[in-house]
């Protein structure tokens, strides 16, 4: 009886070939990436002049996209590490989803920052002339560390699954078989191996928490270490981290729904998962809302001269539409949906997840751009187009291409590897049955 259950689990969870929908999805992602690559080739050739960035708004959607990627990648540490260490078991089927989101997002965070550089050909200067005093170097260090820990946290739990995958030689085909054997042929399921990986995963789970906090705190410091109105805030680290956990969890809600419906995983990603994840998102949205109140209400109460223009631009001025859109879609509406039991049903939770992620993207845009349009000294002696910012098609294409690229990595990963950990699911069912 038990044996049968195990076979059923394996059969359900083995990676599947793309169907018609999947193929269209992958081709469209590749098309968006290709357009982004073309736009970047133009940028490399003509310089950053192809963007709408100018001397005042010198950071635009590349940087807000970077912040967005770093933010969403934090969910890996939340689901795999925080929930694992607190002995929460319901999240087991979600760990790999969260971890691959983390890996692909943090990789694209690194890429997009190179896209933003005026001289990417001098990237090596960061290593030969790097100044440890600069927050950018801190970011390079912690982001690289986070990427490697995340990769290991993805890889170690994959090892027992690779052993299962290797058995299905005919199904896999030549290339996948080679890949599985290269990655996992040394894994023999011995108790010693399990002991050593369990220990390693525990150590990594503990290490990744401070590193995760560091990547987003340091990212917030790229802004908070300057004097600019809207950035000069001691609230920034906590504000960024709470927002990051929120957007990442929103992303997990979306991925859960898509994988569940597309791969028919209703038995593994259950309504109960949406219910619990929905509650997590409500909690995180409330925490983020709290930090937003601190970030905007306190300075708005004082309305310092240097900050007045910036805050009024957000509340009622030029950016008011985007500001209230972001606040309501990233926090208010998802809270209203997910706070009700009906709202935590898969479809409603999926919609809430989309709102969170879209709202959060625009929230990052609002963190970067409006501040730069309100410098201390007036914007004098500059051409008219220096005093506004609306991204060019190249910027949209590159930012869109990077988002598509991140989705492509997640999609291809799910094609190659089981998106729900097979081995761990088997163990969990067994321990349930033995109880």
């Amino acid at each position: 009886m038990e044996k049968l259950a195990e076979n059923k689990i394996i059969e359900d969870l083995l990676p599947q070939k793309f169907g018609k929908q999947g193929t269209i999805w992958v081709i469209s992602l590749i098309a968006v990436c290709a357009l982004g690559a073309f736009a970047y080739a133009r940028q490399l050739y003509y310089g950053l002049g192809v963007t709408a960035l100018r001397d005042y708004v010198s950071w635009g959607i590349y940087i807000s996209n970077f912040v967005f990627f770093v933010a969403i990648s934090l969910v890996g540490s939340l689901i795999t590490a925080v929930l694992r260490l607190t002995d929460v078991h319901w999240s087991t089927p979600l760990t790999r989803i969260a971890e691959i989101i983390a890996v692909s997002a943090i990789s694209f965070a690194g890429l997009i920052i190179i896209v933003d550089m005026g001289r990417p050909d001098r990237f090596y200067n960061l290593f030969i002339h790097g100044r440890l005093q600069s927050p950018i170097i801190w970011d390079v260090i912690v982001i690289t560390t986070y990427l490697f820990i995340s990769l290991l946290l993805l890889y170690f739990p994959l090892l027992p699954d690779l052993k299962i995958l290797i058995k299905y030689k005919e199904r896999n085909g030549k290339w996948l078989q080679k890949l599985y054997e290269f990655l996992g042929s040394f894994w023999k399921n011995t108790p010693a191996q399990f002991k050593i990986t369990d220990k390693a995963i525990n150590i990594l789970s503990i290490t990744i928490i401070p590193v995760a906090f560091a990547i987003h705190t340091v990212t917030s410091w790229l802004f908070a270490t300057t004097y600019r109105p809207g950035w000069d805030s001691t609230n920034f680290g906590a504000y960024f981290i709470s927002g990051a956990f929120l957007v990442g969890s929103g992303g997990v809600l979306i991925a859960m729904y898509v994988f569940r419906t597309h791969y028919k995983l209703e038995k593994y990603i259950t309504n109960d998962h949406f219910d619990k994840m929905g509650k997590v998102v409500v909690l995180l949205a409330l925490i983020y809302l709290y930090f937003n109140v601190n970030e905007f209400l306190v300075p708005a109460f004082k309305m310092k001269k240097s900050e007045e223009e910036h805050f009024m631009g957000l509340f009622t001025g030029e950016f008011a539409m985007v500001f209230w859109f972001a606040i309501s879609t990233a926090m208010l509406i998802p809270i209203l949906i997910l706070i009700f039991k009906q709202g935590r049903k898969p479809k409603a939770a999926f919609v809430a997840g989309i709102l969170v992620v879209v709202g959060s993207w625009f929230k990052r845009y609002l963190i970067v751009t409006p501040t730069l349009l309100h410098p201390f000294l007036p914007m004098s002696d500059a051409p008219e187009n220096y005093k506004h910012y609306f991204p060019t098609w190249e910027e949209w294409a590159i930012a869109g291409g990077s988002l598509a690229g991140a989705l492509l990595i997640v999609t291809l990963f799910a094609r190659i590897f089981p998106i729900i950990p097979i081995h761990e699911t088997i163990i969990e069912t067994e321990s349930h049955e033995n109880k």
Partner: protein
Amino acid sequence: MKNNENSRRGFLATTLVAGAALAAGCGTKNPFTPEAIEEVKPSGELVKLLSVDGEIIEVDKAFLKPVPSLPAISNDEARVGIPGKKFAMVIDLSRCKNLKKCQSACNHMHQIHPGQNWIKLNAMQDADHTAPYWQPTTCMHCDEPPCVKVCPVDATFKRKDGIVLIDSDRCVGCRFCMAACPYSTRVFNWEDPKLEPAIAEKPYNCETSMPQKIGTVGKCDFCPDMVRQGNLPHCVSACPNGVFFFGDILEDSVTNGAETFRFSELIRDKAGYRLMEDLGTKPSVYYLPPVNRNFPFENNTAEATKE
């Protein structure tokens, strides 16, 4: 300003180039192409030259080739600064009538991209009922420069003589310095600077900030190349109203070319101040308040902006 090593190097360079020019005049071959260098045939005519060891040597004229014009000083020297100096600027707001001669001279001498400016003229009004005035802003050359603090590659740096410079050969174009500068003084070369070949081919030097390079940050540099030669920065000499005073705090003197003051007395008597003192950036640029003005404030271009 004497610099022995400098002048010797300059002499050597001129000698070699002069020799080459002579050689080019006699021969039919163009000595500036690599092929010509490979196929040198001794002409039998010897030229006396001064070797690097200081000896007189004789070389066949045919072997002489031009030396590309060398930077006046090395990158290491440019990063240290002029020894024994601490430069400062005093801008007398009571004399400024927004002629923008400072700006056009600066733009011309540094070949700044059209539309961009290192010197900006701000129309200021501090409060509702206070008088508006013109405020030229240069780089403040802060003693606690926020831009230098954040630079990840030491491309922008503070020198011992107080000047903050940019090494465009090292800048990676991250623009963190632009975000960090509260005075919005920095500009970026978004496009390939369209320079005349004569300027574009010059060797880059942090002190001249030329030729500027695409994808790197630029800003007012206090014209250290002029200062090293004992001249005033271009904005100072271009201003017909003597708004800009430049000098050395250690010598306690500043001059606009026509008038020279004791820096300490000028700042004391005219109540000099610095911009955004509360940020703790410690600028090297001082302002004298717009009192007893030489010109009325006339602004036809833009509305006066409040600080």
